[in-house]
């Protein structure tokens, strides 16, 4: 009896010390079932051995009696390829055996649902898959350039939306307003795809929560999911950058992530230059560009809401020296030194106060620094700001909500400039040799904003009124912008919609300086009108047809005396057609066509000329086809008619600077037009699955020209020969990312 008790006691101790010892019996075996490529444990996998059928537990473990070596085990789980394997072929581990199941593509027309967003009529929401697979150059934010109303391509990737200039739009990450979203040097966005949940893009008629913009709004929403396990990714984009990403759960409700990217182009460019430079003059040319960005985020979820603390940083720089006619030094070289950077620290909190009341706030600190030196001139701008946006929302019913928001922003901007002195009687500007003047400007500004937007349902009629009020104490001016969206549901599949609203943007602070600008300047404004119809064509297809018109007024222009005035105005109008094939497991994509006319004038009684952004026709086709769970093909086709440009009317040799200078006939501004262009980009997205990690490959080409036209016009030294500045060149690229 005592012996039996001792034996039982020892067995109990062993069991409590190591659960696996329960299978110490040679007849039992434990199999760990994991996902190929990630190593994640798979639960509820059906394992069949002869007539016996078992399921793996939450830890991916299944325990069976040891079969014969040649007995076939069958593993089955929806979404994974079935696996039949002899027991003897299973991989042995210290704790038993393990097996990896390969994810497979599930056919069907199950449409990926895109989350509910605040409704405005000109808003497009793109989910993570659409962003990752179709983004030009592999950059998620670039996907906005493929949407209707947006001009794309060329060297400057900033968004030109429905005739609005690139500085007229705002970019946000969650509620944080970013100074810029594309690296000025690398021309990739500053936000990695690993951070992005979805992108919301409004080409106009956006809600009252967005201010200081007369063009459009691009909002990047960051992820709010707690990862199941730690995940690491290193990526090499040849030739642009190297990056590393890590995220790990702290517990079931919180996680941290971090990302860092640093350019590699500065190591590759010198050798490229050497091979490209004609006549072996590479030693005269020095170009050192660099850029990078980083973020760190703490995410916490609770039943009441979520909190994100985010640190974001970005920097760009370029040092260049090259032979130039602008040079006044004995070495004949001109130099450029450009550096820009920003960092921000923000805390986003979205919390449910009661069943119907929630709030969303993102207090943040933002510091930006820009330094530019060129030919002895310099412009340095530093800004520190604290911004506290706070928005309350109240749900009156399932489809009716009220949003009430306020924001206080306190900023200090320091501007240090040395620039050529403007002389009113100077017909020919002698930029490089003219007199310069220096000035230091410090601007302390407090901006108070408040807004309301809501949605009211009146039968089949939805009304979404909004109102925004901004007051800038430095300008001592305010703007009041009413905005309204209407929707009328014709039936379940068709909705008529219309919108109108006023949008305002303050001038830059250097434009408000008494020496270089005009302290009396007020807000620039635009009025957006749009109307259209949205249709669902079954579950797979949707369409959106919109006509739009934007009236710009009080835009800042230089008058004949060289001073800045709110004297400009303009107009753009046209229509957009957007046909979207909703995302299923195999296919998604869209086709869009935009017709737009954009014109402007410098004074109220002046004549209209085509604006710089007047492109009449734009056609985009973008999409992705998934062959297998590890291979898909993405691409886009982009056709645009040419932009206008101003011809040179006359040319003079200016002995003061020993250069030829053109003269422009003001009446012929933007009177000529460049030709159309059609560019094709295509990429293969491939996953190579190892047991516990995945190698993501993305390779293809960008800008294969089916129709190639110049992006702009340049001239030879005496303007006797006109040349086109070519479009972007054909760019093959490869991106390798290892996910652990």
């Amino acid at each position, binding site marked *: 009896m005592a012996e039996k008790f001792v034996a039982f006691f020892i067995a109990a101790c062993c069991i409590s010390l190591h659960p696996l010892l329960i299978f110490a019996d040679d007849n039992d075996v434990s199999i760990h079932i994991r996902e190929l490529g990630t190593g994640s444990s798979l639960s509820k996998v059906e394992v069949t051995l002869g007539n016996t059928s078992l399921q793996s537990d939450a830890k991916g473990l299944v325990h069976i009696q040891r079969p014969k070596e040649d007995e076939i085990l069958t593993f089955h789980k929806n979404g994974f390829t079935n696996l039949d394997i002899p027991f003897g072929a299973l991989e042995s581990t210290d704790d038993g055996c393990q097996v990896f199941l390969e994810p497979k593509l599930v056919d069907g027309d199950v449409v990926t649902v895109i989350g509910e967003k605040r409704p405005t009529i000109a808003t497009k929401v793109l989910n993570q898959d659409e962003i990752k697979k179709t983004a030009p150059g592999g950059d998620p934010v670039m996907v906005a350039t493929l949407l209707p109303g947006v001009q794309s391509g060329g060297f400057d990737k900033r968004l030109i939306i429905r005739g609005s200039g690139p500085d007229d739009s705002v970019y946000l990450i969650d509620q944080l307003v970013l100074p810029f979203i594309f690296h000025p040097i690398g021309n990739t966005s500053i936000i990695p795809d690993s951070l992005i949940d979805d992108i919301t893009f409004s080409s106009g008629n956006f809600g009252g929560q967005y201010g200081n913009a007369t063009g459009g709004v691009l909002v990047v929403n960051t992820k709010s999911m707690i990862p199941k396990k730690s995940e690491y990714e290193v990526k090499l984009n040849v030739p642009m950058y190297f990056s590393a990403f890590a995220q790990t759960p702290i517990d079931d409700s919180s996680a941290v992530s971090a990302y860092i990217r640093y350019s590699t182009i500065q190591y590759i460019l010198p050798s490229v230059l050497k091979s490209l430079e*004609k006549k072996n003059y590479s030693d005269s040319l020095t170009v050192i560009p660099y850029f990078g960005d980083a973020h760190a985020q703490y995410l916490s979820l609770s039943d009441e809401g979520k909190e994100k603390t985010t640190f974001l940083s970005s920097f760009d720089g*370029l040092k260049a020296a090259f032979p130039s006619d602008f040079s006044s030094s004995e*070495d*004949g*070289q001109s130099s450029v030194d450009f550096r820009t950077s920003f960092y921000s620290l923000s805390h986003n909190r979205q919390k449910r106060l009661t069943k119907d009341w929630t709030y969303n706030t993102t207090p943040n600190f933002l510091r930006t620094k820009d330094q530019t030196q060129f030919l002895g001139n310099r412009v340095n701008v530093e800004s520190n700001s604290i911004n506290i946006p706070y928005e309350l929302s109240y749900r009156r019913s399932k489809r009716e909500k009220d949003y009430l928001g306020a924001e206080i922003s306190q900023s200090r901007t320091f501007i240090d400039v040395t620039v050529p002195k403007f002389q009113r009687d100077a017909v*020919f500007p002698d930029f490089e040799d003219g007199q310069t003047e220096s000035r230091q400007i410090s601007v302390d500004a407090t901006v108070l904003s408040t807004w309301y937007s809501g949605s009211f349902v009146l039968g089949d009629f939805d009304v979404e009124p909004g109102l925004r009020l901004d007051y800038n104490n430095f300008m001592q001016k305010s703007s009041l912008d009413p905005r309204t969206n209407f929707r009328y549901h014709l039936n379940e599949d068709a909705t008529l919609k219309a919108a109108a609203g006023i949008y305002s943007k303050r001038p830059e602070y250097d434009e408000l300086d008494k020496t270089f600008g005009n302290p009396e300047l007020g807000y620039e404004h635009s009025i957006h009108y749009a109307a259209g119809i949205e249709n669902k064509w079954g579950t797979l297809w949707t369409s959106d047809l919109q006509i739009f018109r934007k009236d710009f007024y009080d835009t800042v222009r230089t008058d004949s005396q060289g001073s800045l005035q709110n004297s400009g105005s303009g107009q753009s109008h046209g229509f957009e057609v957007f046909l979207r094939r909703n995302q299923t497991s195999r296919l998604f994509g869209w086709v869009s066509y935009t017709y737009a006319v954009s014109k402007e004038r410098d004074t109220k009684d002046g004549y209209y000329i085509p604006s710089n952004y007047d492109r009449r026709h734009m056609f985009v086709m973008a999409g992705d086809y998934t062959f297998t769970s590890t291979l898909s093909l993405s691409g886009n086709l982009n056709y645009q008619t040419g932009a206008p440009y101003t011809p040179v009317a006359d*040319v003079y*040799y200016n002995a003061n600077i020993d250069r030829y200078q053109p003269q422009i006939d003001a009446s012929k501004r933007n009177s000529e037009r460049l030709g159309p262009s059609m560019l094709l980009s295509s990429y293969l997205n491939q996953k190579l699955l190892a047991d516990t990690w995945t190698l993501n490959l993305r390779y293809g080409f960008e800008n294969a020209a089916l129709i190639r036209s110049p992006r702009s016009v340049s001239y030879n030294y005496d303007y*006797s020969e006109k040349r086109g500045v070519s479009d972007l060149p054909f760019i093959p690229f490869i991106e390798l990312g290892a996910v652990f």
Partner: protein
Amino acid sequence: MKILFLLALCIACGGGDSRPEKIEKLRAIGVATSPIIQTPSTPDSPKTATITFYAAAPFGKNFEVRPFEVNAINPLTPGITIKAGSIKYQDFSQFRIFSVQASAVVPQESASLSALLAERGSTTYRFGIKLKNGEEEEKIVADLIVAAKDQAPTDIKTTKITILTPIDKSQISTETLQLRANIEDTNEGETYKIAWFVSSGQVKNRRAIETELKEAQAGPVTILVTVRGSKSGTFAYSAVDVTAM
């Protein structure tokens, strides 16, 4: 992509078929004024400035010379008079440099001029001439600098430039040739702008005082260098004839 754009610009500066240093058609090279800096005329003693326009052109071209009115806002800008028979030629082996002299009466002291000079210390008046040969036309503009009496420098030197390498009448390689110039009689605090011109070949950096000539055609080659003072506007040139082998 901006990198590529910058790259394209930089390469465009150094390459291309139409190169600014190559004298293959009529081309202005500079303007000299004498005196270099004026003080305002007085009713009793009107002052005259001499403005000399320089251009280079292949042999066999004759040009008409006319003044033309620059669209200046400055209402005080006086007209210029081209001196009859003032066109002079200096021939080199592969092109000729010719000069045209014009004169201008320096504006008189007035309340508005005095106010301008009190504010800025000096002011400029812009003049121009037009050289024409059939459809070929070259418009050349330059400034006359007028300074307040108490601010007009009295010791401005007329700068000179010489070509140290290659030596006149020497034989050079068609592959690579070192070009080196020397600026003499420099004025303190002044910066100088160099410009090289050649009858054939390509200059690596035509704004550098020391640079290289490549791919000169075998045979006679004329090399010209000019210098201009950025502040004073003083101008000079020098040229050599060499043989590329």
